[in-house]
């Protein structure tokens, strides 16, 4: 187990390093001089040259990358060109908002997704199964920004139940949470159903039933436990996707989260903030994937005992 985990941690570090390289080099070929953008149209060439030199932007790109990476490892993500504040501080502030939204949506998606998936599998090929699967395929197919707007219209403007923007109150989180969680609830319910249906064909389920266990014991104690691996894979990927998916929801509901911050800095070409934002979210995603892999070893003893599982 430690060997497997060490290998995965080494891989994750490698992935983060490659992502940092790709991010830096891709974003540094963006046309336009960032110093010119920062100083505005009226800056003289002399000022532009001086600031370019001060910021180290006249050095070779490889040196700039190493400098940027070194600073990032020390926790210095640079300073935003336009907001004049440390990037890490801005990202940290926005992240608390996004984390609240993303985690509440995730919990909603897990509860509804797993619940619907199990119910659909138990009532396989009956009306309830078909109804739940229609909802889940619709949930997967609907863009979350559109669901957000429809929720705003129905529950915000027509019924006046919830506010349609900001996150000042608890109630304000409800519509964004539903809008963001729907898609992931749908994908988790589909994989839960498929995985459960695979497992219920196995001999040990027949044995469990033959032993006289109740339907609930067979479903939750035997079938669900063994169906967990594919569910964890999809749910793990969804957790990282939910952080990026929140961008669109934050944009619709004007929520000052990391997504909105990222989209704003893309709009005004605030390079340190864009680079920092990409790395920040990428690292979160890599950590989530790593945690999911660690969770496999807890769920599936074959991985724990036998090294890597294909």
């Amino acid at each position: 187990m430690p060997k497997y985990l060490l290998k995965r941690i080494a891989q994750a570090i490698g992935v983060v390093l490659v992502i940092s390289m790709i991010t830096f080099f891709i974003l540094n070929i963006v046309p336009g001089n960032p110093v010119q953008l920062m100083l505005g149209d009226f800056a003289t060439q002399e000022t532009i040259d001086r600031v370019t030199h001060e910021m180290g932007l006249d050095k070779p790109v490889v040196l700039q990358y190493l400098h940027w990476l070194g600073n990032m490892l020390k926790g210095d993500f640079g300073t935003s060109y336009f907001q004049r504040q440390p990037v890490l501080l801005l990202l940290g502030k926005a992240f608390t908002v996004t984390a609240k939204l993303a985690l509440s949506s995730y919990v909603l998606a897990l509860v509804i997704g797993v619940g619907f998936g199990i119910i659909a599998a138990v009532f396989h090929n009956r009306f309830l199964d078909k109804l739940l699967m229609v909802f889940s395929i619709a949930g997967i197919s609907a863009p979350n920004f559109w669901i957000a707007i429809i929720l705003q219209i129905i529950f915000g403007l027509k019924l006046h139940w919830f506010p349609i923007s900001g996150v000042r109150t608890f109630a304000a989180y409800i519509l964004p949470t539903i809008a963001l969680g729907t898609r992931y609830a749908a994908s988790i319910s589909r994989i839960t159903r498929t995985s459960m249906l695979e497992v219920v064909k196995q001999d040990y389920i027949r044995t469990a039933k033959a032993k006289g266990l109740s339907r609930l014991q067979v479903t939750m104690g035997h079938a669900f436990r063994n169906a967990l691996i594919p569910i964890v894979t999809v749910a793990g990927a969804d957790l990282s996707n939910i952080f990026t998916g929140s961008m669109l929801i934050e944009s619709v509901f004007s929520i000052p989260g990391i997504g909105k911050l990222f989209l704003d800095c893309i709009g005004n070409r605030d390079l340190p903030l864009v680079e920092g934002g990409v790395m920040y979210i990428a690292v979160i995603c890599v950590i989530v994937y790593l945690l999911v892999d660690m969770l496999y070893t807890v769920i599936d003893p074959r991985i724990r005992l036998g090294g890597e599982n294909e």
Partner: protein
Amino acid sequence: MNNKARDLKNTKGFYRISWGLLKKNKLAMICLFVVLFLTLVAILAPVITPYDPNFQMIKEKLQGPNAKHLLGTDEYGRDILSRIIYGCRISLSVGIVSQLIATIIGFGMGVCAGYFGKKVDAVISFIIQVFASFPFLLFAIAIMFVLGPGLNNLYIALGLLSWTSTARLIRGDVLKLKDSEYIQACIVGGGSHLRVILKHLLPNCFYTLIITSTLGIPSAILSEASLSFLGLGVQPPMSSWGSMVSGAQAYIRSATYYSIAPGVAIIITVMAFNLLGDGLRDALDPKMRS
């Protein structure tokens, strides 16, 4: 030659059986007809649209659905139905072209990893892992930021980011296939790597490519809609369903109808491709058949 003839015969049989299975799946067949209908709509857009999608009739702006404009008009007085029909072109073309790019890259990478193995496999598997760890939308936004908005850049960005699942599956298929007797016979008989890959591995991986590309199209369509919604996709005045929803957002109080139609168009298209992809997987994948 005998082998080749037998292979060919078997291949035909395989697809004929698959088609038979697909035909039995009513939902998948309905979705196939929806997809064909949407394709026809996209091709015939200039003929069937009641109005020029970019023609502004300011006097008729933000009208609800009526006899003249079946789905109403937008903030510039443009006919929403016509814009949705043209938006279908954008969505389908982005879905198909980006998946074509992703399929070519995915097949190339997957086949090299599986066929050559060892260091090549290790390097490609690592690249796959890096790309799979990319938060998709975030990097699509970053690439569109670098390349600039526009249709061609959308094809490239979405194609470059969505090849990993194809590569993984093809790698798995090739690992199973490369020890087959007919592949070994071709290698022993002096067949070049390219011949083995194109003549033997490609036809045998073809069903995987059909499944992954069909299931990849809906996610590409959703990504295009998301990017266009954020203003990083198709640029005005070109109509895209995502940018139409974005435009409608400002008028949710006064013109509720405006935001509904483009969203419904996205759902129908994405749902049809998803269910067709599921049906194709059930019909084509030997594991699913058994």
